[in-house]
């Protein structure tokens, strides 16, 4: 061993910088805003948000360029096999950039109003986005862990932004401690997988498991490792029973941050989930698929049933995001039916779901941000009669909520349809039925919010509400427009999704 090391000097892997440019752009943006922002007097109104939006746009455009390069040259792995450069990665990065754009538009006003205007929030948004981008691109468990921690640490800080009230403290602390636990599980899982396969690289794990049928049948190391990875990722996607943090954290965090967490956090965690399990551990799918099945069903049922009794809109949306996680898990379950020719459709269904959901949830929380400011809180009763004060905004919220409920002609229906179709294709009828029924229960939650907004009697205050900040209105309009366009003409998103079915190994 030592002789080998001595004989071959360490050669760093060749790095294709341009392929990594979307991530580098985000990172540069984060560092720039923190560095320059701390040296200059506060930027003029909206400057930080504008810079962040611009960064998101640049990163998004760069990602589109990479998409075209993959079209021409094919997918591959980079940086010594540790980065997967395929369309799935790029697609997820684009989703992250869109979520970042919408979030920064939404937060501009909120941050300014809170008298804490500074570059930190936006810097953290971008850092979290970098972490998320690394997660979705990583083809190596160690790199995945690095991305996960980068994103999580930024999100912990963001969650605790309202540190002066107890809910904000609770959110930050709870997220941090439970997140730390889950990271520990995840890391231990990586160690055990390494023990079983002698690699942390997803492609190599895949190849090792393909041929390996152990004579003694002793897979304990591997199976425990898979279980621990499942726990770690399950926490990040807030799957039941690892979901308990999310209602408290969603409620305590500033609303735009919640939207960011729900969108970017889910995109990154699910993309990584798919990469590790569908790409790396696929030859053990028969071992972990039942576990995913159980988790998915539990997530669907618990997410929708517990939502029914909530009275806080952000908590409601937290449970709704849990139930959405259940739907995405169905995609993973479907993709794990290796025997079926159609299993790959599960992957594209997840990817499409992630993109549509990211936009949807950012838009929803943008509306909640605006309405909460009018009503003075995020309790359901604070939303009473919002439609009288702001009919256009209420209409936007209605579209977004109907979309979350999966009503046709909205993007949410397209997303759900894709996942259910993937499940039916591999003959997972039971889970498809359970999912649709839990969607019915979840619909009750969205109806309750709509009832509060449209139909509840408002407290008699006729004062005209303040003008909606332009950036916030823009972000809502973008989200609603996207929701309807995709809902009415989904073809283009679906064909993008269809090109994602193959994960690079």
């Amino acid at each position: 061993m030592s002789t080998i090391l001595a004989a071959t000097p360490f050669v760093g892997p060749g790095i294709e910088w341009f392929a990594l440019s979307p991530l580098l752009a985000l990172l540069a943006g984060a560092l720039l805003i923190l560095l320059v922002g701390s040296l200059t007097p506060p930027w003029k109104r909206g400057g930080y948000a504008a810079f962040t939006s611009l960064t998101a746009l640049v990163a998004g455009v760069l990602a589109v360029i990479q998409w075209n390069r993959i079209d021409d040259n094919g997918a591959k792995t980079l940086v010594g096999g540790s980065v997967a450069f395929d369309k799935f990665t790029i697609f997820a990065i684009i989703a992250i950039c869109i979520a970042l754009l919408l979030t920064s538009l939404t937060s501009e006003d909120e941050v300014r109003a809170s008298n804490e205007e500074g570059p930190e929030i936006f810097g953290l948004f971008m850092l979290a986005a970098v972490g998320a981008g690394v997660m979705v691109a990583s083809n190596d468990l160690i790199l995945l862990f690095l991305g996960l921690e980068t994103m999580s640490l930024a999100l912990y800080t963001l969650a605790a932004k309202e540190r002066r009230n107890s809910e904000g403290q609770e959110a930050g602390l709870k997220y941090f401690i439970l997140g730390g636990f889950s990271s520990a599980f995840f890391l231990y899982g990586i160690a055990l997988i390494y023990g079983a396969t002698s690699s942390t690289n997803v492609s190599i794990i895949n190849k090792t498991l393909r041929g390996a049928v152990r004579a003694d049948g002793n897979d304990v190391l591997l199976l425990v490792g898979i279980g621990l990875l499942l726990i770690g990722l399950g926490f990040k996607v807030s799957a039941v029973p690892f979901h308990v943090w999310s209602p408290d954290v969603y409620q305590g965090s500033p609303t735009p941050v919640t939207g960011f967490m729900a969108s970017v956090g889910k995109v990154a965690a699910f993309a990584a989930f798919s990469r590790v399990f569908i790409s790396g551990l696929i030859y053990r799918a028969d071992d972990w698929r039942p576990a995913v099945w159980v988790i998915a069903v539990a997530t669907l049922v618990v997410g929708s049933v517990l939502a029914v009794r909530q009275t806080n809109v952000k908590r409601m949306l937290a449970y709704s995001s849990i139930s959405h996680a259940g739907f995405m898990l169905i995609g993973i379950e479907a993709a794990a039916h290796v025997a079926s020719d159609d299993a790959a459709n599960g992957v594209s269904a997840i990817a499409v779901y992630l993109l549509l959901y990211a936009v949807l949830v950012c838009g929803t929380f943008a509306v909640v941000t605006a309405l909460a400011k009018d009503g003075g809180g995020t309790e359901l009763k604070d939303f009473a009669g919002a439609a009288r004060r702001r009919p256009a905004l209420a209409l936007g919220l209605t579209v977004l909520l109907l979309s979350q409920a999966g009503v046709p002609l909205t993007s949410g229906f397209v997303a759900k349809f894709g996942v259910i179709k993937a499940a039916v294709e591999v003959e997972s009828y039971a889970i498809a039925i359970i999912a649709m029924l839990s969607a019915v229960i979840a619909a009750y939650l969205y109806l309750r919010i709509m009832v509060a907004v449209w139909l509840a009697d408002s407290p008699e205050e006729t004062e005209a509400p303040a003008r909606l900040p332009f950036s916030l209105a823009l972000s809502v309009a973008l989200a609603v427009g996207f929701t309807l366009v995709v809902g009415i003409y989904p073809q283009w998103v679906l064909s993008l999704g269809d090109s994602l079915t193959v994960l690079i190994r």
Partner: protein
Amino acid sequence: MSFPILTALILVPAFGALVVACLKKSRPELVKLAAVLTSAVTAGMSIWLLASFKTGEAGYQFTSQHEWVEAWGISWHLGIDGISLFLVVLTGLLFPIVIIGIDPHHDEKPYLAWMLLLQAGVMGSFLSLDLFLFFVFFEIVLVPMYFLIGGWGYDNRIFAATKFFIYTMFGSAFMLVGIIATALLAKNDVGYFTFDLVQIAEHADFAASTGRWLFFAFAIAFAVKVPLFPLHTWLPDAHTQAPTAGSVVLAGVMLKLGTYGFLRFGLYLFPEAANWSKPLFFTLATIGIIYGAIAATMQRDLKRLVAYSSVAHLGFIVLGTFALTSQAMTGSVLQMINHGVSTGALFLLVGMIYERRHTRLISELKGLQKVAPIFAAAFTIVMLSSIGVPGLNGFVGEFLILIGSFETARWWTVVAATGVILAALYLLWAYQRVFHGEPDEVNSDFAELKPREGGILLIFIAAIVFTGLYPKPMIDRIEPSIKSLITHIEERSDYKAPADDSEHSDHMSEGEHE
């Protein structure tokens, strides 16, 4: 290429809804004008459709087909045949009547927008020949109806609206999975992946057990919508709490989505399963007829009474649908229209009573005949039509259903026939309590029918009497499609329709109105 009339029937009201939503609230007359115009144009188109429909042809007419979502084999495929023709016409005519004739009292603009959107959705459901497209419309109608009940209904409206939404969505949950599974399983037989109804129905050959599972996935959604006992409990709540216009539309066309769904999708796609499971549907329909009638007798609220009578009437329609004979099924389609007209008119009348007295409780009303004789006369005709008195429309439909069902579902029909008597019981008893006797103090200034109200009722009564006296034009258009559906079922299951079927029904339709 000819004018895409069916597409226009969907898009015109949808566009109207958009226009109404964009107009300024401060110009109510413009808003109303836009709504009336679009619904009138739609009505005109549906009448034109009726006039140029080729009588005697069984197949789909005016079809239009465009790619929509190629990746999923979904197309914008519309068509109309004898089964859907009159439902489409009814939808086209009922909405302008409701929009012009019934005042929402507040927030007219969103009300009209939802109404038009609802019309577009219902039209789409009746016209779709693509499973996915049908599902889209079938689901989308929930949204405007939810807001109409929740926004313009009575005291307990939010509960009723939510119950309505959740119940129907519960059924659709099964149907969506069923639709996807149907399309996927049919892929090999059809040769490519498509949601096209005709392609799947004509080419797919499901194994018996598979077909039954799929059929029940669809059937649950339709049974909720009909509603079939025991899934009917949303209906009395929704009807009672809905605003008058909502009730009229709900009874008039929306409940028909369920019975129409059985005919168009359930029986057409899964003949074997439908034939196999018909005893179940006979039983549920018969229970619905008897139970609905008894429950209606017990009601103290006039609107709830009419709602339960709907459960009974739709039981007849389901009975006729599954009887699988030409008379019974033709009668079912006819009865869908009749029920829409009669019950729609009943809800209208109950709404007028509520407008005047602000109560729907039977015990609060008394002796209205004395103070408002014309109103009472109108009520009587509509009521008699609902009971099924010969010479009015209800008789034709129910008689055809009972005659046709007697051959294939004898004992169920015997029991169901008592439902006709029960209908007389609950409606006449209610009439007696509300209209007979001396009016007490609060009822003595009950206003007589206003010209606008009378005009609207006249349209309904004209339809009631015309269909009752001369149903032949309708039967001639409905029957060919029904016969071809029965042939389709015979080819694909071991069912054989009774031999003397066609002669019998010709004889019936001739003799009926002479």
